């Protein structure tokens, strides 16, 4: 289990326990955290589970998947620290991870 905190664009924060092996996207969807659409269901075929990861966490989580940046090009307001949350694996090492959600996904 790892505690993941999702911070909405309006500052509202949601902390949930996510089981190891799931993705940060699944953690949000299964716990009804608003702001992560995940239209394609985790297939890296859309860019609607887009999150921003602060520098101190960016290097601790698993590296970007091949093609992930191509999808992030198509996200809403991509930044340098953009990730697709369906590609971030949950493990005990990322206990305490904070991700920030964009203004909107579509």
């Amino acid at each position, binding site marked *: 289990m790892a505690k993941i905190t999702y911070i909405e664009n309006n500052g509202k924060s949601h902390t949930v326990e996510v089981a190891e092996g799931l993705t940060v996207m699944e953690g949000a969807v299964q716990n009804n955290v608003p702001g992560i659409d995940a239209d*394609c269901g985790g297939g890296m075929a*859309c860019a609607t589970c887009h999150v921003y990861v602060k520098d101190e966490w960016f290097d601790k989580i698993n590296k970007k998947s091949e093609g992930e940046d191509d999808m992030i*090009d198509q996200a809403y307001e991509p930044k*340098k620290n953009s990730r697709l949350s369906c590609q971030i694996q949950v493990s005990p090492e990322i206990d305490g991870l904070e991700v920030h959600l964009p203004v909107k996904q579509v």
Partner: protein
Amino acid sequence: MIKTDALIIGAGPTGLFTAHQLKLIGLDCEIVDNLDKIGGQCIELYPDKPIYDIPAIPECTGEELTNNLLEQLKPFNIKFHLGERVDELKKDNEKWKVKTSKGTVFETPNVIIAGGVGSFEPRKFPTKECEQFENKTILYSIKDKKIFDGKTVSIFGGGDSALDWALELSKTSKINLIHRRDEFRAAQATVDKIKELSNAGKINLITNSQLKTVFGNGKLEEIEIENDNKETKKLKTDFALGFFGLIMQLGPIANWGLNLNKKTVEVDTEKFETNQKGIYAVGDICNYPGKLKLILSGFHEGALAARACFKLARPNEKYRFEFTTSSKTIKNRLGVKSD
């Protein structure tokens, strides 16, 4: 007005196979899709990516799957209405009256929504100021390239659309090509060509930058871009084009009085009918306990929805279950010889 036994919304794999099922049991159908091509997400999102979980097909790409489904539909003459979005759906006596964005009107007892995750729309610039210039000097698709002759055009994006248009328009216009990183997701040959033109000073290539805001009075005059180090730069321009791919919006489906769950439509698992009689939802857009967003599930759902359509389309006939291996009637419909 077009009268048909069933109208399918969405020409993705589920919509195509549902059409096959309808025709096999002797019903007419027509298909509407907002995209200008057949194949839905398979063609728009992953035409070259292999799929490994289509029953009896060990491996095929989205494009191959679409072509095979079209091949399977060949015996039937199915009319497609592409580049049209279904905007209105109204009950008229016992039938549904359906109107598209191009004004086509259908009358049908059955509407099957095979709309995936909604209709594809271009991803727009997030900058609010862009709205006032939209469809005039800020564009997300090109209908007539002559309007750019001799003008300055700022193209945003790093995929094939952005790069192909930058190459094409560089023959007659002054081009700024702006991308948020320095890697491109376009074909390597195109990327090489862009770099060549950039080195020769024929295209102004700006990477690691994005649009910050726009200025103009009535028409676009100047754009301000910002790079990763938060440095800004202003560029005079006549047009700004954004090619950020497509996003999926539920769109008008949300206004048809259907029971929705997030972006999906609730159905039963016998007929895949919604809370409205004669309106069905199949494929990724439908939702029921245990729903799997797999292409194979869409095929199953379409087959059952097609049988449900029979009752409303042929109220005085009884549907008889038949196998394609043995039924003479079905073989006639397929145009193949029976033994």
